[in-house]
């Protein structure tokens, strides 16, 4: 007699076999024996109506087998990816957020893009210190426990590397949303207002700049005007409700809302107040923008208004004519996104998209627009306008003003070309 075994086809359990599995197998055998001859057991290929799928005729794993949850193994494509030819090594490199899968304004901590200059340090929070000194009345040394006693702040902000889109200045190179726009993430951050800490040490009248320095091997250091530090900068220890991820600066990092990612110093250990900037390597040789005339711009900190359509995109093509919801993300380092317009004809005509709540200052903002695609070639674009009235520029306009050697601060309108078969390509218009 054939006795049908449970759990044929897809394995609904992601736990290793053990006593629990044997227990369930026993139950399953009983059920199989009871069901024998009734043809009610699903085959591997019959998991949809009218058949009852295997996962509906089995006992799933119990609690305690995944004490820190991970995404379903069916979501294995949703990972940070990198461009191997972009950098000389993995320790001073960057990975990209899979924006094509991001459904809200919060980037899951596990796929938030990485940028390291000397790899990811393993910092012991018990040994970690934040030192504040220089032009202050009372230098201060703080433990993590000390920092967590100060009044706390929760804010949602994006962080974008200013090199996001930097490979696209001369030509369309990468056929992917993840690689053209993935140097960005948005999270809820919890920490202390830097102004609270600076008031605690007492700022000397001559102080006008703050050097923020990390505990990584690069001792990453950036000069930040005191005015910004007193405005909205945070020293944070938590991201999306839990301790910062090591990739994001565990146990402590700076959040400089709306400003280029590099100044959001990770693994921060030191703040020095001074009366002039330091002109570190990361604000002279790098993170400066070479213009066509050979002059360079420095200290170009804020991220200006930018947006991108996340569906359809090269990774997420259309499938035949019909109604689609065009989806995307918009952001501005100068405040809130005021509006987003979408064009399907390469910028001849525009339609105002719907902004989804919450619309927060210096945070990713989601937009959607219903689109009835007739199956003909289309050129999709989105254009953000922020609360200062600034309008996201075309790439042609940016090139006209800055040339193509700047690397950083490419906030241009992205064009996705949709072909009749639904495939989507990264293109640039004349």
């Amino acid at each position: 007699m054939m006795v049908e075994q449970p759990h044929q086809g897809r394995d609904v359990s992601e736990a290793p076999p053990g006593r629990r599995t044997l227990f369930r197998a026993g139950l399953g055998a009983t059920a199989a024996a009871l069901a024998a001859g009734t043809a009610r057991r699903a085959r591997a290929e019959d998991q949809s109506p009218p058949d009852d799928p295997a996962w509906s005729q089995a006992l799933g794993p119990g609690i305690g087998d995944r004490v820190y949850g991970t995404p379903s193994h069916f979501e294995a494509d949703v990972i940070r990816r990198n461009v191997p030819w972009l950098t000389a090594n993995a320790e001073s490199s960057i990975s990209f957020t899979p924006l094509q899968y991001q459904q809200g304004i919060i980037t899951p901590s596990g796929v938030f893009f990485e940028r390291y200059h000397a790899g990811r340090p393993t910092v012991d929070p018990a040994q970690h210190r934040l030192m504040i000194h220089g032009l202050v009345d009372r230098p201060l040394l703080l433990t993590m426990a000390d920092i967590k006693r100060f009044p706390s702040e929760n804010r949602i902000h994006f962080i974008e590397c200013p090199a996001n889109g930097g490979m696209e200045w001369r030509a369309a190179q990468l056929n992917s949303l993840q690689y053209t726009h993935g140097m960005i993430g948005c999270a809820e951050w919890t920490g202390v207002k830097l102004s609270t800490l600076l008031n605690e040490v007492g700022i000397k009248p001559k102080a006008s700049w703050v050097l923020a320095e990390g505990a990584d091997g690069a001792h990453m250091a950036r000069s930040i005007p005191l005015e910004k530090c007193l405005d909205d900068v945070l020293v944070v220890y938590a991201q999306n409700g839990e301790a910062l991820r090591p990739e994001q600066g565990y146990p402590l990092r700076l959040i400089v809302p709306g400003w280029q990612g590099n100044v959001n110093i990770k693994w921060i250990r030191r703040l020095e107040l001074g009366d002039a900037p330091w002109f570190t390597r990361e604000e002279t040789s790098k993170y400066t923008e070479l213009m066509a005339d050979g002059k360079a711009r420095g200290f170009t900190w804020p991220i200006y208004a930018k947006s991108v359509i996340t569906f359809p995109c090269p990774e997420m093509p259309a499938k035949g004519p019909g109604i689609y919801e065009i989806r995307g993300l918009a952001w501005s380092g100068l405040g809130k996104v005021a509006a987003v317009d979408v064009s399907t004809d390469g910028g001849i005509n525009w339609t105002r998209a719907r902004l989804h709540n919450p619309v927060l200052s210096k945070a990713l903002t989601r937009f959607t627009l219903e689109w009835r695609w007739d199956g003909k070639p289309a050129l999709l674009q989105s254009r953000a306008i922020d609360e200062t009235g600034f309008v996201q520029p075309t790439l042609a306009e940016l090139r006209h003003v800055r040339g193509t050697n700047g690397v950083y601060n490419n906030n241009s309108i992205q064009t996705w070309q949709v072909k009749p078969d639904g495939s989507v390509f990264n293109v640039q218009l004349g």
Partner: protein
Amino acid sequence: MFSWGRLFAVAGALLPIAAFAADAPHYGFGTTPTPAQIEGWAIAVRPDGQGLPPGSGSVHDGDDLFSALCSTCHGTFGEGAGRYPRIAGEGKLTGDRPEQTVASYWPYATTLFDYINRAMPFPTPHVLPPDQVYAITAYVLNLNGLVDDNFVADAKSLPQVKMPNVNGFIWKDPRPDTHDEACMSNCRAPADIKVVSTAEGKSLTPRTTGTLDTAMPQ
């Protein structure tokens, strides 16, 4: 009932509190770092020389150190190895392939000391004594033709090194430098809409599904 006398009494009571707040911390968490603790961590160097430690190093000493510690990535003469960029020599900052070397681009020689000290050698950063950092700094400046063979780098000499591109930077953000308007209809002539560049067919894009793609393009 309102009383001027009571208002003055309240204001008088507040004054000492305000004075107290200026002289002392409000929360009082943490400790005061010792001078030795501050000195150990305060490594940042400014163009005026603030932060440069005692010590010195010559171009000659830097030659041997550079060969041993730096040349694997930066090349014997700073020409760069593999995908590491060229760091030495003259270079144009205009055209299709600008060359941003220490000589052509870096505005301050002090930044070189600061960076080598804080971040180099790449596999074991911030382990070299100041004399060796000064020596490597002197050698890199010499490779760039910015100092002669007899140069000795120290806290006095480094801020005085003349860097050719010191005036090549605009440190005040000129943005917004684009002034597009949010036109809604008939914004461009349909005949002007032309695809001038596409990523289609280029073999530069790593895989976006499956496991991580580590292959270099053809």
